[in-house]
């Protein structure tokens, strides 16, 4: 095809677009776009402080090493605790956000958190119910077959892999722990009998 200085194709007719599309072109002028310019000095925010008052109770609160101090306001949703808490604490204390180890340790902490919480729930008043908590009961009355099949959904091509990918690493890790434990606990002479 020839490449000329003109933009290929027909030029859209603004009147046709205006008639067909509600509000077409009403924000053509960037000044009508709410967050323009992107940085707006001296914007009115409603803040009546230069530096917010410090939220109390943060003595043991973890924080990124990239912050020089605890932020004036912080979340208190789920404080660090248990083994997962130690892993997370190490990630925050040792590594900046630029280090992959920081994030991978946090993901490890998440998985340890999920497992230990599940085990702990078994001796609590409300044990986990993995089946209902998965929400799979929502399949009923929400067209599980018609939603998935005969519609060309490309995710079906790999969804059979999902259980393997989710469970597989844990099985491999358990096997590795078993082998390692066996190597440590059993004398070499008994290992290959």
């Amino acid at each position: 095809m020839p490449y000329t200085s003109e933009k290929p194709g027909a030029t859209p007719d603004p009147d046709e677009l205006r008639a067909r599309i509600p509000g077409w072109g009403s924000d053509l002028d960037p000044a009508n776009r709410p967050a323009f310019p992107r940085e707006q000095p001296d914007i009115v925010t409603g803040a009546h402080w230069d530096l917010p008052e410090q939220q109390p109770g943060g003595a043991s609160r973890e924080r990124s090493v990239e912050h020089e101090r605890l932020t004036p306001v912080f979340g208190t949703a789920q404080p660090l605790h248990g083994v997962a808490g130690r892993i997370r604490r190490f990630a925050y204390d040792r590594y900046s956000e630029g280090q992959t180890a920081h994030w991978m340790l946090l993901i490890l902490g998440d998985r340890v958190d999920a497992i230990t919480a599940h085990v702990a729930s078994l001796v609590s008043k409300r044990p986990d119910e993995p089946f209902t908590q998965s929400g799979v009961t929502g399949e009923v009355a929400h067209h599980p077959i018609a939603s998935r099949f005969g519609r060309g959904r490309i995710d079906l091509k790999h969804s059979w892999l999902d259980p393997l990918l989710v469970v597989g690493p844990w099985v491999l890790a358990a096997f590795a722990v078993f082998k390692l434990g066996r190597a440590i606990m059993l004398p070499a002479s008994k290992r290959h009998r």
Partner: protein
Amino acid sequence: MKAMTYRGPYKVRVENKPDPKIEHPNDAIVRVELAAICGSDLHLYHGMLPDTRVGHTFGHEFIGRVEQVGSSVQNLSVGDRVMVPFNIFCGSCYFCSRGLFSNCHNVNANATAVGGIYGYSHTAGGYDGGQAELVRVPFADVGPMVIPDGVDPEDALMLTDAFSTGYFGAQLGDITQGDTVVVFGAGPIGLAAAQSSWLMGAGRVIVVDYLDYRLRKAEQMAHAETINFGQVNDIVLELKKQTGGLGADVVIEAVGAEADGHVMQHVTAAKLKMQGGSPVALNWAIDSVRKAGTISVMGAYGPLFSAVKFGDAMNKGLTLRTNQAPVKRQWPRLLEHLAAGHIKPSEMITHRIPLEHIAEGYHIFSSKLDDIIKPVITPTA
């Protein structure tokens, strides 16, 4: 109070939790009337975002009534009906004082790269979210806004993130009159971005997805042309053909971390968490925009690296713009559009689910059952 709580990947339940308390003089406690599940909540649900702790309550899209205010709150009163932006921000730091509310440096102790977000893991600050009966709202004088009379509550709810983010995505595209805009993703953000592109003068809007029901919605709600990338051999080539060989002027990426379309990328990123997100949609955006074009990234990604084709972006001279939307800055203009009938954000809502059934809600949304586009949670139903 009753609240949705995370129990591990793909598992949530409703629990009785202690009511939130005023922890800072500028806090408010809001009784939630409506909340939503966002597509980006699914990244948490799937265990993709680091430091998502068991017991966490998700939900960064909610509206409700002010139940209690801290001693320094001046702009809100008990009983006010408010919409709350998904960003938590102080209003006074280097970034907030320039209007970059989503980049506030005073609210997220856990990271400097991410602002504070309700119910979005400790990577985003460790604040419980709004899929609950009550929620703590920090900096009540700068974040929430009283919902104007006559504004439909579901429209207000969609302005707390989904529609505002879509609008922001179109804005970052720097659309000029007659531009061809391609939107990857026909979820709520993509629908809003497509609709907003027209407001900014686009000449063509093409929405790409693989779910036929979402593409039909894009045709109806956003007046867009659509392409099902599952039904073409090569979506980049198809888009090049449709744009005279040059590519689109602007591409808005509204897919993010769990993009489908390339099995290995999906597996390494979405399933094995070896990347900050599947870069399929981002790479398609780089390939299908014209040289010197603009890509606006609204899709959510995690903090790990992703295998992005940056060499192509460099050689093509692209402008990549991205951020979490500074939602509160969008509201005055979007409320004008709402009043003028240019937009109707609640059109994207397809499911209304009581809080007690939220596990089913997450499963339906995650599995894309029942032609779901946007689920709304009703804590008091």
